[in-house]
């Protein structure tokens, strides 16, 4: 569905993406992981055409992305930090997007609007919303037009546990409809139950792109966090990030069978 060939991107001297190649297909849930500043968001934005890569090609359904924006009608995008026109009301925002997309009322997917209770805040202006509520609006917008591809940039960051659970359920539901879902997250336990493939980026380089089962087999670990930690330990990528990740994993699991320092 999405094919990426030799994508390179530099911001001044900083290498954001270094020769990325990948093929994403229907029914897959791809987790993009890596430390801060490893190029995850840049990769996502290049797929969306918001960032223009210096070289390389991106294909959507075998068609090269350049200029024609119509492919974006099949993508639902939830940004890391949702920024919306300040003096617009929540209801107006949804109405405007439906109006611009010209989609009939019965074709939109308003499940998240219902479940997040966004209808009650339709007359609040976007300026007054908290970070978490904004995140809910972003999520509801991403799913609104029933897209074939969902691109979610840190979807659960800033959401309360209940909302985060609702969102995860929704993602699982869409996964079962044979959609392609791209997720970035630092909370690996969230990804555990969703993901089918892992792409690990570091300093713009694609360190690996593997199926989760293969990863589990190779490492003998069931938990995603531990599996990745094991790989990293062997190859000594960025130990600090892995250690940090492990601490999170430890607190979550309440058991510490193996620490990387052992």
């Amino acid at each position, binding site marked *: 569905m999405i094919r990426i060939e030799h994508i390179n991107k530099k*911001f001044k001297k900083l290498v954001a993406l270094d020769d990325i190649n990948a093929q994403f297909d229907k029914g897959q849930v791809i987790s993009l992981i890596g430390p801060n500043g490893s190029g995850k968001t840049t990769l996502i*934005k290049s797929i*969306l*055409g*918001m*960032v*223009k890569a210096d070289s390389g090609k991106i294909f959507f359904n075998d068609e090269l992305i350049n*200029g*024609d*924006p*119509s*492919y*974006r*009608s099949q*993508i639902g*995008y939830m*940004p890391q930090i949702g*920024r*919306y*026109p*300040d*003096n*617009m009301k929540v209801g107006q925002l949804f109405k*405007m*997007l439906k*109006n*611009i*997309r010209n989609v009939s009322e019965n074709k939109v997917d308003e499940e998240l609007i219902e479940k997040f209770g966004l209808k009650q805040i339709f007359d609040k202006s976007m300026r007054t919303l908290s970070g978490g509520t904004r995140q809910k609006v972003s999520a509801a917008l991403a799913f609104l037009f029933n897209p074939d591809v969902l691109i979610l940039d840190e979807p659960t960051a800033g959401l309360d546990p209940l909302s985060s659970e609702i969102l995860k359920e929704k993602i699982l539901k869409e996964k079962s409809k044979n959609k392609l879902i791209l997720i970035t997250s630092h909370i690996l336990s969230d990804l555990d139950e969703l993901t089918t493939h892992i792409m690990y980026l570091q300093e713009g380089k694609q360190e690996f792109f593997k199926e989760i089962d293969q990863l589990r087999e190779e490492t003998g670990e069931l938990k995603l966090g531990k599996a990745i930690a094991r790989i990293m330990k062997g190859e000594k990528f960025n130990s600090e990030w892995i250690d940090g990740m492990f601490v999170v994993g430890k607190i979550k699991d309440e058991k510490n069978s193996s620490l990387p320092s052992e």
Partner: protein
Amino acid sequence: MKRIPRFLQNDKIKIMLKLSKYVLYDIVRSKVILAYTAFLFLVSFSLFNMEENSSKAILSLLNIILIVVPLISMIFTTIHYYNSYEFIELMLSQPMSRRKILLSEYGGVALSLLSSFLIGVGIPVLLYSPDSVGFSLLFTGICLTLVFTSLAFLTSVKARDKARGIGFALLLWFYFALIYDGLILLILFNFSDYPLEKATLVLSALNPIDLGRISIMLKMDVSALMGYTGALYKDFFGSGSGILFTVGIMLLWIIVPLWWALRVFKKKDL
């Protein structure tokens, strides 16, 4: 049958109109544009009422318009661009081309500034001085609004942050409204031994404010005071080709910066 250009196809225009509608809605809510309209209206009305002679009033109005219209157009457009950055970002994640997004923004801003000008200055002029001088004043005002909106889009797209954007806009305004005249005077003074009439004609085209000023001045009696240069100007700008020249140069001043802004915007990382 003549082929319709791609950008004029019906549904594309429809989407742009829709977007422009939201831009306009956003602008009207901010009320700055209403204040601008009221300001222009008050100034024009009081000038026409204070001066006995309507052509004197037009002359005073001209001087105010040549300073205020470019300044407000640039500052308002720049601030609007940065304030609607979120809107632009949101639209970019939708199936919407960058060209369409920027052109709808331009349409919305230009339309609101133009209606302000036409209400604030147009109505008083039509009431008190509905002659050729009045109409060329309106024409100049309309052109200057569009030109400086284009220029402001160019500077905003090029500058990364709001402070720099407004700084650039102010600098450009200073240049066109004040510095440029100083430079011309300097040239005229230093090269006064040479015949410069043709050269000044070219120089005036390089500044839309000057071009507007000259084309109106020549419609008034004051051009008699400008001596030989004035006579030459009157000869040229008064003729049919002179009017075409003015319109053409103004159009270039509108289209070229906007086209350049579109080019920059297309390649920009957002």
